[in-house]
């Protein structure tokens, strides 16, 4: 990442304006909630977590007076994550304008669904390990509500994790007769490894 030019960062705890704006832009650009680690990886590893926290506090303050958007944080898989969310006050307006909206699965949702489809039965922990980020509960909820993902029971291992799999509806919505019709990536992956 030699082409990255991180904003000048004083050692004091008061975050510089450039960092506040950068974190704001990252929260808005990445379509899943970000942990301190994830932010740190993007902003530059040398940024102290305390400085990032102070920066998030500044971002929160900037949006505090906004009637329709706020900085929300919550705990996912034991880690605190942040994202900018629209408040309930926006909901009535969104319904009014619906016609033009073409909903699309986010990249995070597509990757989660792909892992569930290809690697089922798969636990949430395995999805997290594969994607390197915590699974956003909203995404699982979306996939379950859409009727594509379901629970296959729990595994008898520490924590009794739940196994996830796809549904019959998933197959029919994606025009498949069986999972075996999905391309078998194992061979491709092996070849890629040799190429690189």
């Amino acid at each position, binding site marked *: 990442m030699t082409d990255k030019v991180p904003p000048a960062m004083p050692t004091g705890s008061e975050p510089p304006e450039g960092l506040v704006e950068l974190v704001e832009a990252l929260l*808005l*650009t990445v379509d899943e909630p970000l942990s301190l680690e994830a932010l740190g990886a993007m902003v530059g590893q040398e940024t102290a977590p305390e400085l990032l926290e102070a920066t998030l506090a500044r971002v929160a303050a900037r949006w505090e007076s906004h009637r329709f958007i706020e900085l929300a944080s*919550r*705990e*996912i*898989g034991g880690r605190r994550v942040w*994202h900018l*969310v*629209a*408040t*309930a006050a926006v*909901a009535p307006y*969104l319904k009014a304008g619906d016609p033009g*909206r073409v*909903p*699309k*699965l986010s*990249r995070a949702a*597509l*990757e989660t*669904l*792909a*892992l569930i*489809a*290809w*690697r*089922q*039965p798969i636990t*949430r922990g*395995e999805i997290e*390990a*594969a994607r*390197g980020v915590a699974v956003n*509960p*909203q995404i699982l*909820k*979306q996939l*379950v509500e859409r009727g594509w993902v379901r*629970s*296959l*029971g*729990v*595994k*008898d291992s520490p924590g*009794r*994790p*739940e196994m*996830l*799999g796809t549904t019959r509806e998933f197959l029919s*919505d*994606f*025009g*498949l007769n*069986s*999972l075996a019709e*999905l391309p078998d*990536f194992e061979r*491709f992956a092996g070849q*890629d*490894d040799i190429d690189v």
Partner: protein
Amino acid sequence: MPETDSRRWVDATPRVSGQPLEQLPLDLYIPADALAIWLEQFEGPLDLLLYLIRKHNIDILEIPVARVTEQYLEYLALMKSMAIELAAEYLLMAAWLAEIKSRMLLPPEPREDDEEEPLDPRAELVERLLEYERTTRAAGLLDEQPRRGRDWFDLSVEPPEQLPAPAVPADLAGLIAAMNGLLREGSVRRAHHVRAEGLSIRQRMTDILDALADRRSCELAEVFHPEEGRMGVAVTTVAVLELSRTHALDWSQEQPFGPVTLFRLAGSPSEPAVEEEMPR
């Protein structure tokens, strides 16, 4: 395009311009490895030819075929000397150039209608060079066009929870691309040291868990499908073994060769817990 002459040029390689080529073309005083990288960047014979034509400020419609051919062969010899693997197209082009060169020496073929000028042996080459030149410029224009994901990025905030989730259309291409992306990054393979099972086994694992969805146990025989033949039996067996290895189910057998019973381990499947905390 003539295909018959390529071998002739291959035979002639060691004696380009009448002598073995040991010296770089005059304008190429750059370190050998940098040169190799530079040479490798040509996108093919048309690209190399176009480069030569531009470099020498030649009118593309009046290509001095003999001179250009000679330079083209020099570059090819250079690339070979740097052990750059030459695509067959380069050799075909060399043959084609040689053919055009020899046809230029012959009296022009009379055209059947003999109203227009005699056909220029270079005409097709010129047309292809012009077409390729247009392509490179079109590509340049595309590259300059502000592009999502490079020059600008979509912003979004999470919609309020009260909003009913709109039905997302199924997007198989997107799904495959997502999986492919994960595999390319390598993270998936690292996380899964398990030997790769085929999807039919994955499907069978899900089916078996399904058979246990509303009861505590079932007979192994119920999940076998003899009509699938040996392959089907093998798939089911591997699926059961994998499920029991990963503690997704348990099994017992009262006596050797007796019936095998599969057990659900605990808790019946329900809505996946999508609530905040999840033990890890």
